[in-house]
């Protein structure tokens, strides 16, 4: 862990009482949902973490507390450091504040997380589905959402599947 990253992590720990974990030289800082905007402001304004690289979520179903983790990767050009923030969320329909005001490119990432996991962002300017059709039901990347594959046709079950397969006409 670099000196600059060390300082940033320390500041997050002192200011928000955050816990940290380390895995293969990557630092993750665990924060509460209501702290995330302030934490991002702190990182951007005082520690020169200018870019939100990535924002995504992980589903730990059937676990309920926490069911989701929202994961942020924030990068500093100047110091060449990357920090990972994680926000655990409970319940099936969680929500957390949007960080669009701090990092504008969070807009699409948050729409994607909403689309794929059904996590709501408060204060987001345009929370719509982004990848799936607007009338799609369910959130595909949730663990309780099935992969939705079609049964593979072999010679022994060809007739059976072919009979119920829909074919287009002119």
């Amino acid at each position, binding site marked *: 862990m670099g000196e600059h990253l060390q300082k940033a992590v320390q500041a997050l720990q002192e200011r928000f009482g955050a816990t940290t974990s380390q895995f293969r030289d990557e630092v993750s800082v665990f924060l509460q949902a209501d702290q995330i905007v302030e934490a991002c402001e702190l990182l951007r304004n005082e520690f020169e973490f200018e870019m939100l690289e990535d924002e995504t979520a992980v589903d730990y179903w059937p676990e309920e507390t926490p069911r989701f983790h929202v994961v942020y990767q924030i990068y500093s050009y100047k110091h060449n450091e990357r920090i990972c923030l994680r926000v655990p969320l409970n319940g099936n329909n969680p929500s957390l504040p949007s960080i669009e005001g701090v990092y504008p490119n969070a807009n699409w990432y948050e729409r994607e997380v909403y689309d794929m996991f059904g996590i709501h962002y408060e204060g987001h300017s345009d929370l719509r589905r982004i990848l799936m059709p607007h009338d799609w039901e369910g959130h595909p990347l949730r663990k309780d959402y099935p992969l939705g594959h079609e049964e593979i046709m072999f010679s022994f079950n060809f007739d059976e599947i072919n009979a119920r397969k829909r*074919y*287009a006409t*002119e």
Partner: protein
Amino acid sequence: MGVEQKLGNMGIVTAKLEDVVNWARTKAMWPMLFGLACCAIEMMAAQASNYDMSRFGMELMRASPRQSDLMIVAGRVSRKMAPVLRRLYDQMPDPKWVIAMGDCSSCGGVFNNYAIVPGVDEVVPVDVYVAGCPPRPEGLIHGILTLHEKVRGQKLRDWA
């Protein structure tokens, strides 16, 4: 070819109308400029210098469905794209043909999941399937020639 010698000075050739129409259709079958995914790159390669699809009267890719005869579904069709694809097909004037290029559009390929239509024949009727992920440009050209063969064999009563 020898047609000139047989013609003499009369300037008339007798042939079946079917043959002449089908021949004309295969010699200027304009595909729609419509790429979806990976296969579209191979379709571009088939158009470009090394493979040169214009040898088969296909140098014109029409961007508008109203001007095209052939739809090459090059790549995976997602659930969101399927209605658009059908709409494009409906806009094409008759007679029209469809080639499902690649595994994804033929049967779903490796993406047997919620997002991809398992085989574009659910959406539009397909004339020729080309296997491969993606098929080589030669594969696509073979598919097109197969389609030409099919068109040449069509009967007048099929058009009605």
